[in-house]
C-alpha cells in the first residue's frame, strides 16, 4: 500500500476534463440548435407596436442629473399644463457627472435612445458631436439667440460651424473668501498666498486655500484655471496639441505643489473633491476655497460658523495675468433621430428660457446665461452672486474642446495628483503629462495625430 505512487489515483480524475469537454460541447451544440430553430418563427412577431393614435400626446423625454431634474420639476409641470399635445418627462439620472455620461453613452452606442433631450456638460460636447449623436440646432436658434447671452455662456455650444447645445446654466469656477478675515479678496495668486500665510501665522485660521486635488476630473478643472492664470495653456486649438511642458505650465504646477509644501493648503487637498473642500471651508478651517456657484447656497443654508461671512470673487491669476474660472455650464442637446424634434425643441426653448433660469438662480444658485436676467434688480437682490457670476463669465476658461478630453483629463489629473502626493517634481510631472498626451492623441487619431490636423476647437 505504501509503495503505491501518490498520483496513481489521478487516472480516475483524468476522465474529468474529458467529461467536462464532452458536456460543454454537447451544451454548445444544443444552444446552436436552440438559437437557429426558433429564429425564423420569432422574427415576424417582434416589432408590432400599434400605430399611435393622432389624439395621443407626444412624449418628450429629457435625461438630467437628479439635482437638476428636481430643480426644474415645477417649470416642467408648468410646461405640461400650458402645452397640450406634448408631455415633457424628466428622467432623473445619477448625481455623478461621469456616471450620467456613461449611462447616456451606453444608450447612444446601442442606438436605442430612451430620451429625446440630454442635459450636456460642456466637457462632453466635443466627444458627443464627434460621435454624431446630436442634431444641429441652428434651424431653430439663430445667431441672435446666443447674442442675447453673456459672452462666456456662448462658449462651448458650437462646433464645426453648427450649434449643438442650448446653454441652461452659466456656471464657472469661483474663488470663495472669508469677509471676517480680510478687507478685500486677493487680486492675484501671490496675494492669495501672502494673505493665507499671514492669517495662518497669526493663528486666525488653520489653512489658507482649499481646492480639489483628488485624482479626478475636478482636478483638471483646477488645472485649467491655474494654467491660464500663469499664462500657460493646456490645449492649443490651432495645432490641436497639448502644451503641458511649457515653462509657464511647469510654473503653474509648481505653484500648486508649493501650496502643499508650504502648508498653505493641507496635504488632504490631494484627496479632496468639491464637497470635501466645501465641508472643510464651511466648518471654518480655511480662508479661501475654490468651488462652483452651488457652494455658496450650501454654506448659507448650512448655518455653520462661516455663514454670512463668505464673499465670492472671480478666479485670480498670477500677478499681471488675467485670471479666469473654468467654464462648467450645462445645456440641452437634441438627440439625432428623435421622433419628434419640433416638440423637443419647444421643450428646450422653455427649459433654457429666462423663466426657468431665474428660478434656478434663486433656488439653486446656478448662473443664468441671458444678459437681461443679470440686469434684473429683483433677481440681483434674490441671487446675491449674480454680479460676480457675470464678471466671471467675461473671462471663462474652456477645458480642452477636443473629443479626446476625457483621456487627456484622466492622465493629467493622474500626473498632477501624483505630484501632490510627492511622487515627482513639477517639471517631470508636466513633461510626462505632455508625452502621454501626445501618445494618446496619436493613438486616437491615427496618422492625423502626428500632423496635428485635429478638429477645430469649440467656438475658437
Amino acid at each position: 500500500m505504501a509503495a503505491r505512487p501518490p498520483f496513481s489515483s489521478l487516472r480516475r480524475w483524468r476522465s474529468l476534463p474529458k467529461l467536462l469537454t464532452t458536456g460543454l460541447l454537447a451544451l454548445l451544440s444544443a444552444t446552436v440548435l436552440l438559437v437557429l430553430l426558433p429564429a425564423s418563427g420569432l422574427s415576424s412577431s417582434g416589432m408590432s407596436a400599434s400605430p399611435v393614435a393622432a389624439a395621443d400626446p407626444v412624449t418628450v423625454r429629457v435625461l438630467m442629473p437628479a439635482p437638476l431634474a428636481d430643480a426644474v420639476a415645477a417649470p416642467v409641470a408648468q410646461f405640461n399644463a400650458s402645452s397640450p399635445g406634448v408631455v415633457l418627462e424628466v428622467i432623473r439620472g445619477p448625481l455623478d457627472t461621469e456616471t450620467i455620461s456613461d449611462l447616456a453613452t451606453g444608450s447612444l452606442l446601442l442606438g436605442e435612445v430612451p430620451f429625446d433631450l440630454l442635459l450636456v456638460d460642456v466637457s462632453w460636447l466635443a466627444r458627443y458631436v464627434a460621435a454624431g449623436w446630436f442634431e444641429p440646432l441652428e434651424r431653430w436658434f439663430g445667431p441672435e439667440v446666443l447674442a442675447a447671452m453673456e459672452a462666456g455662456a456662448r462658449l462651448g455650444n458650437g462646433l464645426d460651424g453648427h450649434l449643438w447645445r442650448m446653454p441652461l446654466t452659466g456656471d464657472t469656477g469661483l474663488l470663495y473668501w472669508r469677509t471676517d478675515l480680510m478687507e478685500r479678496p486677493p487680486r492675484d495668486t501671490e496675494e492669495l498666498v501672502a494673505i493665507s500665510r499671514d492669517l495662518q501665522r497669526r493663528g486666525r485660521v488653520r489653512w489658507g486655500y482649499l481646492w480639489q486635488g483628488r485624482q479626478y476630473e475636478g482636478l483638471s478643472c483646477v488645472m485649467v484655471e491655474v494654467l491660464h492664470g500663469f499664462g500657460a495653456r493646456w490645449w492649443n486649438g490651432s495645432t490641436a496639441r497639448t502644451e503641458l511642458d511649457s515653462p509657464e505650465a511647469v510654473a503653474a504646477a509648481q505653484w500648486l505643489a508649493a501650496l502643499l509644501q508650504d502648508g498653505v493648503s493641507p496635504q488632504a487637498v490631494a484627496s479632496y473633491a468639491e464637497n470635501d473642500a466645501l465641508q472643510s471651508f464651511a466648518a471654518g478651517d480655511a480662508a479661501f476655497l475654490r468651488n462652483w456657484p452651488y457652494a455658496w447656497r450650501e454654506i448659507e443654508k448650512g448655518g455653520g460658523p462661516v455663514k454670512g461671512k463668505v464673499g465670492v470673487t472671480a478666479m485670480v491669476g498670477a500677478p499681471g495675468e488675467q485670471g479666469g474660472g473654468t467654464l462648467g455650464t450645462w445645456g440641452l442637446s437634441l438627440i439625432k433621430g428623435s421622433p419628434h424634434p419640433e416638440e423637443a425643441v419647444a421643450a428646450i426653448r422653455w427649459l433654457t428660457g429666462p423663466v426657468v433660469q431665474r428660478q434656478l438662480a434663486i433656488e439653486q444658485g446656478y448662473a443664468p446665461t441671458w444678459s437681461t436676467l443679470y440686469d434684473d434688480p429683483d433677481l440681483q437682490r434674490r441671487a446675491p452672486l449674480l454680479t460676480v457670476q457675470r464678471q466671471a463669465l467675461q473671462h471663462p476658461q474652456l477645458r480642452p474642446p477636443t473629443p479626446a478630453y476625457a483621456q487627456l483629463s484622466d492622465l493629467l489629473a493622474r500626473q498632477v495628483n501624483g505630484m501632490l502626493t510627492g511622487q515627482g517634481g513639477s517639471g517631470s510631472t508636466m513633461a510626462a503629462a505632455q508625452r502621454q498626451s501626445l501618445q494618446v492623441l496619436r493613438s486616437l487619431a491615427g496618422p492625423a495625430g502626428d500632423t496635428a490636423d485635429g478638429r477645430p476647437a469649440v467656438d475658437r
Partner: protein
Amino acid sequence: MKARTASLLLMAPALLLLAAVFLYPLLLYGWLSFQASSVLTGLEPVPNGGANWGRLLDDARFWTDAFQTLRFAVCSVALELVGGLGLALLLHRPLRGRGTLRALTLLPWALPTTVMALGWRWILNDPHGPLNAAIRFLGGSSYGFLSTPATTWFFVVLADVWKTLPFVGLLLLAGLQTIPEDLEEALRLEGAGRLQILRRLTLPLLVPYLALAVLFRLAQALGVFDLIQVLSGGGPAGSTESLALYAYLNAMRFLDFGYAATVMLATFLLLLVLVGGSWWLWRRGDLQGRREGAA
C-alpha cells in the same frame, strides 16, 4: 475511422460556435489594436502604426491596473483556496444535517454578483450602513470605508472571497469524496496524525482539484469587472480599478475602441502567460511526481 468522422460532424456546430465566439473576436481585437478607432476618426478604423501599443507601454494607468488586478486575483484566490479547503474538510466530515449545510453554503455563490456587490456597498455606506451603525453603537465614529483605498481594496477582496468560497469549497469537496477511505484508515493504523494525513494523503490527491479551482478562479478573478464596477466603481482614485474595467471605460466612456481592444488583448496575453505558466508548472510537478513514483 467512420466513428471519427461522425464525432467530428457532431462536434462541428460546437466548434463553429467556439470559433465564432472566441477565435473571431480575438482576431478582430488583434486587428483593431493596430487601428485608431475613436471619436477623432468618426469611430471608423484608421491604421495608426502600432501607436496603441506604444501608448500602452507608457500608460501608467494600464500598468497600475495590471498590478492591482494581479494583486486582487492572487490574494482572493489564495484566500479562497485556504478557506475553501477548510470548508470542504468541514463538510466532508459526517455531521448532522450535512446536506442542508452543504446547500446553505452555496447561497453566496448563487447570488448574482451585482446584487451582492450592491449589498456590500450598502453595508459599507458612510454613515448610514449597518457596519457604521455598529461602530457608532460601540462608541466609535463613522468611517468612509469606500473612500479610503486600503479599506476599499480589503472589502473588494472580502466580497469576492465571500462569494466564491463556496464554489472552491464544493469543488474540493468533490475531490475529497474521490479519496478512498481505506487509504486514510491505513495511514491512521500506521500511526499517522491528522495533519500528517492531510499533508501526505489528502493534499497530494487533491492537487488536480486544487489546480482546477486555481485555473477557474484565476481566470475569473483576473477578468473581474462587475464586482468592482458596482462596489467601488474602481475608486477611490482608481485604487481598485481592474484591467477589465479600464478596457470598458476606454470603450464606453472614452469611445476609444482601438485602445480598448489593445487593453483587452494585452490583458488576455497577460492572463495567458499567467494561466499557461501555472499550468506548465503544475504539469511539470505532476510528471516529476509520477517519475518519482515509478522509480
